């Protein structure tokens, strides 16, 4: 049974494009076409506006919270080609850094797993992906991958941190050697996987081809301790594919069609414990999917908009064992 526990009136004056809960579910960040980013304290069913951040000169498309071990940090990206990093210092939120390295709208921002440090990936309509790494004392190092996707990049999503071998303590402060990877989706109908080489440069590792139109969103599933990697991608062509790679080293990805929807699919996201995929489509519905043991993806719920105050129960669909 699901219930609406809180309705937050954001007072945004225009369309809301993104809403993200922070790590603990205590704060909500929202952004809108009205060019503002707002932060609310939503504990105990309440809503207190903590910050109304202005700085973008166009609709703000996405916001992303960094891991709390780095402090209270929020990134936002906008049509105005800029990425802004906001930070809470002494109780007030301020602009901490501005990245203006793109020639066109920045569509997506995603923080890397905290194990890698404080790194932000940004995908833009100019086809490039930039990676901002915090190096200390307010400085950010920028690496840019030009022409990552022709026409434009719509989404970026990091792979969860996987430590090769066993994790040994490094008292002198050396970090274990993580292999950093992320996925991007673009207007060239492709999903690309990127890997950081030893020299610090980013290289295209894989191309995942299955869509016949622009890829709108990619989401790399959180790790649940199994060696498989899973990526969900959705496209203008109405299809959602689930890509799996059974082994970190084998590098062969196989797609499985989740579903063909009747309209553009805009957004896919994984639940925190990785077992449910939410798909938001142009058909004004959100569907929730789960994988059954025989590898089939089953729709377990339809979340729809509507009038009236009905809350129905969410059931687990079960599938014929054939």
């Amino acid at each position, binding site marked *: *049974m*699901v*219930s*609406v*526990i*809180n*309705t*937050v*009136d*954001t007072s945004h004056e*225009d*369309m*809301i*494009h993104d*809403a*993200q*809960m922070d790590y*603990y*579910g205590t704060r*909500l960040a*929202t952004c809108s076409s009205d060019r503002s980013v707002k932060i609310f304290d939503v504990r105990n069913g309440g809503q207190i506006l903590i910050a109304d951040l202005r700085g973008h000169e166009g609709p703000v*498309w996405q916001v992303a919270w960094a*891991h709390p*071990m780095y402090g209270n940090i929020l990134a936002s990206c906008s*049509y105005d080609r800029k990425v802004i990093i906001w930070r809470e210092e002494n109780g007030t939120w301020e602009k901490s850094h501005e990245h203006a390295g793109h020639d066109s709208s920045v569509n997506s921002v995603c923080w890397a797993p*905290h194990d890698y440090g404080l790194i932000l990936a940004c995908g833009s309509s100019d086809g490039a992906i930039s990676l901002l790494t915090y190096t200390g004392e307010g400085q950010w190092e920028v690496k840019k991958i030009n022409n990552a996707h022709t026409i434009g990049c719509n989404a970026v999503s990091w792979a969860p941190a996987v430590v090769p071998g066993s994790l040994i303590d*490094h*008292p002198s402060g050396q970090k274990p050697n993580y292999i950093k990877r992320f996925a991007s989706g673009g207007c060239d109908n492709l999903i690309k996987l990127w890997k950081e080489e030893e020299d610090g440069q980013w290289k295209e590792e894989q191309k995942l081809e299955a869509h016949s139109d622009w890829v709108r969103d990619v989401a790399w599933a*959180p790790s*649940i*301790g199994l060696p498989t990697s899973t990526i969900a991608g959705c496209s203008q062509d109405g299809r959602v594919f689930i890509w799996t790679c059974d082994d970190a080293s084998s590098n062969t990805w196989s797609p499985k069609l989740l579903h063909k929807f009747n309209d*553009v699919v*805009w*957004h896919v996201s*994984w639940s*925190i*414990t990785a077992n449910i995929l*939410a798909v*938001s489509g*142009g058909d004004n*519905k959100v569907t929730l999917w*789960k994988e*059954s043991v025989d590898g089939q993806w089953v729709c377990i*719920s*339809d*979340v*729809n*908009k*509507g*009038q009236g105050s*009905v*809350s*129905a129960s*969410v*059931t*687990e*669909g079960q*599938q*014929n*064992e054939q």
Partner: protein
Amino acid sequence: MEELDGEPTVTLIPGVNSKKNQMYFDWGPGEMLVCETSFNKKEKSEMVPSCPFIYIIRKDVDVYSQILRKLFNESHGIFLGLQRIDEELTGKSRKSQLVRVSKNYRSVIRACMEEMHQVAIAAKDPANGRQFSSQVSILSAMELIWNLCEILFIEVAPAGPLLLHLLDWVRLHVCEVDSLSADVLGSENPSKHDSFWNLPGNTQTLTELELKWQHWHEECERYLQDSTFATSPHLESLLKIMLGDEAALLEQKELLSNWYHFLVTRLLYSNPTVKPIDLHYYAQSSLDLFLGGESSPEPLDNILLAAFEFDIHQVIKECSIALSNWWFVAHLTDLLDHCKLLQSHNLYFGSNMREFLLLEYASGLFAHPSLWQLGVDYFDYCPELGRVSLELHIERIPLNTEQKALKVLRICEQRQMTEQVRSICKILAMKAVRNNRLGSALSWSIRAKDAAFATLVSDRFLRDYCERGCFSDLDLIDNLGPAMMLSDRLTFLGKYREFHRMYGEKRFADAASLLLSLMTSRIAPRSFWMTLLTDALPLLEQKQVIFSAEQTYELMRCLEDLTSRRPVHGESDTEQLQDDDIETTKVEMLRLSLARNLARAIIREGSLEGS
């Protein structure tokens, strides 16, 4: 083989606008966010009135109920006890233990029901009262189902006593609800039979009983056929009832509150020694006869029917659908699993049924600010995905107080979840730094074994010292112990403080050597050398010679090193000039002191010992 459950349920989010706008969705750590949006990213959105509301949605809202909390807390204890029951136990002793566990669970449900009932009566607002009352009926249904499962699956009552158990069951539940009417039919006749059965210390075998009953039954039939009671229609119908005639029984329908009451009554009169495997024949037909095609079975009816048919999986499935939280199915399934009743059947979603339900239930507990602690134990007993689920959930617990943080850390440490420990300590260290609690930040970074952060905090300490001339959190720094080795900067901080201590204790020679070694071993950051050299001044100016000639040479070397390679930063010209002035004066003073000390040291070392 399970069949496809039809279309997935549609959940409507109230208040979200109609066909016009699309729906945005995202996951929070424990909840879901929904709002209206337009995915088509254009610079100017059309003049469609946009909705500024964001809906935060949760499953598992029951965790917030005050009264149910007692249910969760107490059943948690029973659950743990069950897990620890010796696996070696078999046969009768094991069964009796399992039955006891089942009864414990039931008594917890009843206690909860009682309390909620009281609240319902006392409720000032009738709507509230109604809500509590409906909760009471749900709990009552839960206990009804559980009790039946206990009789059929756990107790596994053999043929004879089965009916007695069912009679008790009906009497307990039905007579509660419909006290007066049920009493009339329920108690009247069984009293005759009670003496017949002669309960405790029953020395008759089942066959003997059955024979006796047959004999008595035939006698009744003869009376009916002989029309012995033809004069009294009441007595005749009573006779028919006692013969188990369904039509006669149904005539008294209003006295039977439901079909299972009808079922048990019917069995009592027509087949009291019914075997468990034959139950389902009677069950289905009783349901059909009782409803008589006028109404359709409700969810509760289906669940009970499934139980009578010994279809455990169906019972669990139906309960999962009908109930609003996972408490019931999780605990019942776990118990049945301990009775070895669940085969490795249909492994859905990567783990067996028991584990799947326990994981869902435990995840729900994590939504609550204090019930999450119960969830930890449930995860512990899920061998496949319990650990990784716990890892994912425990990191998301808001650490609002130090106490809570310590509690969470202890849980992680007990389970060797080193990654989580590290991550949580880092978060706390960062928080402490932002609140200027450097000592706290340092101890958290040490616990996190985070060298980089330790360096950062140490730098802050040193900076503070430079500005204020004293250290904060001396206790902590003095007692670093081996943790000092975590980072070079931290080691320096510890050693530097040691230097000050030695100086305070007038152990000048030791202090001097330490000071020198800090520079020569390169542990001291270059930026601090000037401060260190300045710290050496009082030692150089002492009456006695402290630094040996060798050491003085070293110090001079360090000074020259420092002055020859002075970095030029982007300071303004005037600032630099001023700094230069101060710097030059300092350097000159040092040079003078060092030279004087060198002279004295050479003299002392050159002459005989003693001065």
